[in-house]
């Protein structure tokens, strides 16, 4: 496996084995879809950072003379509102550009939360086999017996609607997979010789867990994290659409769709563009995630 990777990058780096990151990149960039996905994600990040400068209007400004104006290429469209306006005269393009902030923050927070808790529980379950492990894994089974969107809905119903509660709820629903994944990977690693060696040389439990074992479980977790990122954007938008996530007038893409629903047969642009934004962002993240998985999965390296 190493040999082929070396020979692949051998053109530039002569004989020295390439840095693991460089090796990864050499493999990753062969996947055109993944590179396209990464490029689009970078674009979304850029837009989110500079939405205030790029966006032509204020996302909450209601132009009273411009209710439900169609996009610029339609007959009565103007360049003032390139993608048209919604039912209360807000610029749709501006709101979509600002919405990217919410999606990225949602993805980031959900992944951070669920990854932290999931890895902790998974590692603990792998290290303390027995009743603790049984308890954790049973709890995860119970959560898995509920459709994840429904579980999120229930948690929001308990905590009350709102963007933060929605993120919390989504994070909880992602726990079972992460816990199972971490535990399985950690148990595999624990039986390997290097861990035994580390134990023999007197490493203590926390060090063993975090420094010795965890880094070797990271590959599947990183892949799962990118997939969770895109799923979180989808699920948060779904909760927003159901009126359980971000509340109006927040320019969150799912909430925008919920507000636009009643105009579905009258003003197609109000409905279409926020959805395109969700689809493209999620698609880009999934393309990137697929590429990441292939580049990290040593089984597929050839």
């Amino acid at each position, binding site marked *: 496996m190493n040999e082929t990777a070396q020979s692949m990058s051998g053109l530039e780096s002569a004989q020295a084995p390439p840095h693991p990151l460089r090796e990864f990149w050499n493999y990753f960039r062969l996947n055109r879809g993944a590179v396209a996905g990464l490029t689009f994600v970078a674009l979304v990040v850029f837009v989110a950072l500079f939405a205030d400068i790029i966006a032509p209007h204020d996302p909450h400004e209601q132009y009273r003379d411009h209710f439900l104006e169609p996009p610029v290429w339609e007959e009565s469209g103007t360049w003032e509102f390139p993608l048209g306006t919604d039912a209360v005269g807000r610029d749709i393009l501006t709101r979509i550009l600002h919405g990217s902030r919410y999606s990225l923050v949602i993805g980031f927070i959900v992944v951070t939360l669920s990854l932290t808790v999931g890895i902790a529980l998974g590692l603990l379950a792998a290290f303390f086999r027995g009743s603790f492990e049984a308890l954790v894994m049973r709890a995860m*089974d*119970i959560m898995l017996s*509920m*459709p994840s969107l*429904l579980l999120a809905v*229930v948690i929001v119903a308990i905590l009350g609607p709102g963007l933060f509660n929605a993120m919390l709820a989504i994070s909880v629903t992602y726990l079972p997979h992460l816990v199972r994944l971490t535990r399985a990977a950690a148990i595999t690693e624990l039986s390997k010789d290097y861990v035994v060696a580390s134990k023999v040389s007197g490493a203590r439990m926390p060090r063993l867990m975090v420094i010795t074992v965890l880094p070797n479980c990271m590959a599947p977790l990183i892949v799962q994290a990118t997939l969770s990122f895109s799923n979180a954007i989808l699920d948060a938008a*779904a909760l927003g659409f159901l009126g359980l996530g971000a509340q109006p007038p927040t320019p969150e893409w799912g909430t925008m769709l919920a507000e636009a629903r009643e105009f579905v047969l009258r003003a197609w642009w109000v409905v279409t563009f926020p*959805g395109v934004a969700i689809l493209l962002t999620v698609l880009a993240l*999934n*393309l990137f995630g697929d590429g990441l998985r292939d580049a990290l999965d040593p089984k597929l390296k050839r």
Partner: protein
Amino acid sequence: MLRFILTRLSILIPTFIGVTLLTFAMIRLIPGDPIELLVGERGLDPARHAKLRAEMGLDRPVLEQYWHYLTGVLQGDLGKSIVTKQPVVDEFFTLFPATVELSICAMLFAVALGIPAGILAAVRRGSVFDHSVMGAALTGYSMPIFWWGLLLIILFSGILGWTPVSGRISLLYFFEPVTGFMLIDSWLSGESGAFKSAVRHLILPTVVLGTIPLAVIARQTRSAMLEVLHEDYVRTARAKGLAPWRVIGFHALRNALIPVITVIGLQVGVLFGGAVLTETIFSWPGIGKWIIDSIHRRDYPSVQGGILLIATTVIIINLLVDLVYGLINPRIRHRR
């Protein structure tokens, strides 16, 4: 095989108990007074509050309360809806067939398209067809289905006028439900056009709900087939002089189906989650829409009972999937 079933069952029971614990705790976790939540009134006077508290057994120790709840659940008592005052169980099973009908149609749609597409993509690996199927599958997998539903409404209901926007059947038709499945009931009713109307109402929701399972099944079938096509026994099948369709569609597919069935089973949960969105978009009178409406109406007994019943359904379906998995995989069946 019997042993296999028994092990599965023994995992199932604690899971069910866990779910009841969760729904039991749910009412007590919601901010606010549980009695007010369960009765659906605010600012109860202290005398009535105390009376209700005793009636509901909320003055007892928590463990006893839970025992009371669990025995009630096992006897089919899930409380009454605050809004309609009807038993939650009755409400649930009136609406359940609508969701089941939609889910079955969506799954059939996903399987009927996804498996052949996955097989063809694997057999013609690297072809234009393969790339388009996989591109479409990734797009479907990334699809916000609530938006997809709206988009289809714009196209097929708005512009083309082919399909209705909402509901299960045209208001022109009315007949007493027999099975609760509109396709069957409309057929049985004998009214001309009723069945056709039911089908037309079902098409868009089916496509919307089936999209993600379709994408997942197509991807899984392709990768399972690719793996299987390299196996020695596929070469043996060809060495027997079998026709290509039999080698691929029988010897290879039979093995590739094992992981595909697992994935189909996992999609059942996804389907129930998606039903919440699909039913909301198309005003489909099923469980998903009912739960969301109940949350908005703060009808917590309905939410509590509905969640428990849905989770139980998913648990039972997962058991069935496990059994099917055992049936089609001889290596599992004979394992002790």
